[in-house]
């Protein structure tokens, strides 16, 4: 499949989604810009190019559509931006992010009925289990669509992840594509310093998974290619994981190169610098 033509049209989304991210976080002086910026290419590729779904026809049970779970729930800025721009809910609603009476909670929640969200996440390590349950349900329903999930790499320190990893291989849950944002950053510093994950590929392989990697998760074509390749590995009686190497804060120069921008908001001057680096392409909310 030749993908470069279509995917290139999506390049215009990248600076726009990054504008949304920094504007949303700046407006309430709260939220998580770093991981959001680093996952921008992933979200655009997944929602606009990979998933077989109809954002206008969101249903909780997700029958006959590909569905996605965000396990590292704190990167709502990128999630909400791409959900809105994909048509799950009005783009204008991004203004309400983290404000009182909003459907756009700090971490994703079903409680307010926001289309696109199927489970609350944010307390880390839980999304993979939920995604596996949804994948089992698809099998029981004879639904041939795929379940996608994103985990942070720091999140893999949670024990529940490895319970789920064992379960997936044992029960041959092969209609799921798990992706990992391997930015090597977490709140207290580099993942390798806080609690080293070691050889992640070898760990998943030892658990009985098929492992794919994307060396540059901040290149739209590379990540789209990697997702296509990883998806082609599904339905072979083994769960599939794609390890995506990304840069936290990618696209805003002063937010790159450290873990410092995990969960802090830019001030007015920093916002302007971030916006200058990401021109308006699709129209600000």
């Amino acid at each position, binding site marked *: 499949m030749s993908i470069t033509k279509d995917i290139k049209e999506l390049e215009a989304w990248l600076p726009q989604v990054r504008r949304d991210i920094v504007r949303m976080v700046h407006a309430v002086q709260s939220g998580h810009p770093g991981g959001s910026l680093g996952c921008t290419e992933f979200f655009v590729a997944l929602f606009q190019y990979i998933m077989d779904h109809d954002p206008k026809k969101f249903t*909780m*049970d*997700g*029958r006959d559509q590909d*569905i996605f779970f965000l396990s590292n729930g704190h990167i709502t800025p990128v999630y909400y931006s791409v959900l809105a721009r994909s048509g799950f809910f009005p783009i204008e609603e991004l203004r309400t992010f983290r404000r009182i009476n909003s459907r756009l909670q700090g971490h994703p*929640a*079903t*409680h307010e009925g926001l289309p696109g969200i*199927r*489970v*609350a*996440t*944010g*307390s880390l*390590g*839980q*999304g*993979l*289990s*939920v*995604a*596996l*349950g*949804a*994948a*089992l*349900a*698809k099998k*029981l*329903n004879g*639904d041939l669509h795929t379940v996608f999930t994103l985990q942070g790499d720091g999140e893999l320190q949670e*024990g*529940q992840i490895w*319970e*789920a990893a*064992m*379960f997936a291989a*044992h*029960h041959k849950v092969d209609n799921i594509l798990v992706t990992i944002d391997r930015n090597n950053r977490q709140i207290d510093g580099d993942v390798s310093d806080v609690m080293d994950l070691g050889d992640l590929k070898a760990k998943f392989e030892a658990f009985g998974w098929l492992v794919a990697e994307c060396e540059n998760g901040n290149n739209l074509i590379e990540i789209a290619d990697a997702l296509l390749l990883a998806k082609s590995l599904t339905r072979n009686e083994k769960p599939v994981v794609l390890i995506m190497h990304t840069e936290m804060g990618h696209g805003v120069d002063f937010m790159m190169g450290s873990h410092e921008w995990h969960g802090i908001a830019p001030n007015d001057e920093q916002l302007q610098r971030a916006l200058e680096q990401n021109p308006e392409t699709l129209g600000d909310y």
Partner: protein
Amino acid sequence: MKNTYTDSGAKDTRSGFGAGLLELGRRNDRVVALCADLTGSLKMDGFKKAFPERFFQVGIAEANMMGIAAGLTIGGFIPFTGTFANFSTGRVYDQIRQSIAYSHKNVKICASHAGLTLGEDGATHQILEDIGLMRMLPGMVVINPCDYNQTKAATLAIAEHYGPVYLRFGRPKWPNFTPEDQTFEIGKAITLVEGKDVSIFATGHMVWMALQAQKLLADRGIEAEIINIHTIKPIDREAILNSVAKTGCAVTAEEHNRYGGLGDAVAQVILTAHPVPQEYVAVNDSFGESGKPEELLAKYGLTPENIAAAAVRVMERKKH
């Protein structure tokens, strides 16, 4: 209403759950079951054998089990999870809170070996805090049926209720005295014996103990009203208030810590609507220990004699 309840042959409530689950499997093809290496203890073997494609062994990984159950609801299934009460609640509280309760998932958390009557395994496994933990979660229904027949009926009933449910039952063989053909109505207390002197609200295994206490009290000329509060949340306010309006005092009896359980749930209703004296029959803020169920119930103050004594005390307080 005379106390004519007789034990039709002791059976464990967990077997009532197992029988209910098997019947549900036949009735409803959306019902699925998950177990964390306790299939035999939870009496889930029947379902597992009859519906292997709808049974998921998760191994000793309760946190994962709760998440997978939440995920199965997303495809429209009704998952029943099975493990001991201790591992169904405290061990996985955050998973239940975020993935199930806050996300309003249609998961039935089925918990065996609750309370002291677990017996010889000791306090590591005898959870006495689970009712409190679960009733604090918004939207969670909390049910503690009293015998085999009622546990089976409750198991069938919770499949018809949309939303998270905590179903608590136990290990020992226990008198089976409620009707075999009963329909179970969530949130509807059952008055077993009418009386005018004292209201005794009991849940789970302690309902049978309350019926024995009623006889002890009757021998002393005291007419106790015995009410089975099988659903602790949502609690039947009307039944509680109607009873205490008549009797003017209340005793609660539960196989649980005195903090956070049935006693507190009843007290909240009484205190805010019709204050009357209340006495608790519950474990006095301690852990349990190894021993035979009947020895433990005696040592920790959960006998018919304890209930009768509490009734006498609370009636005395009513006079002042």
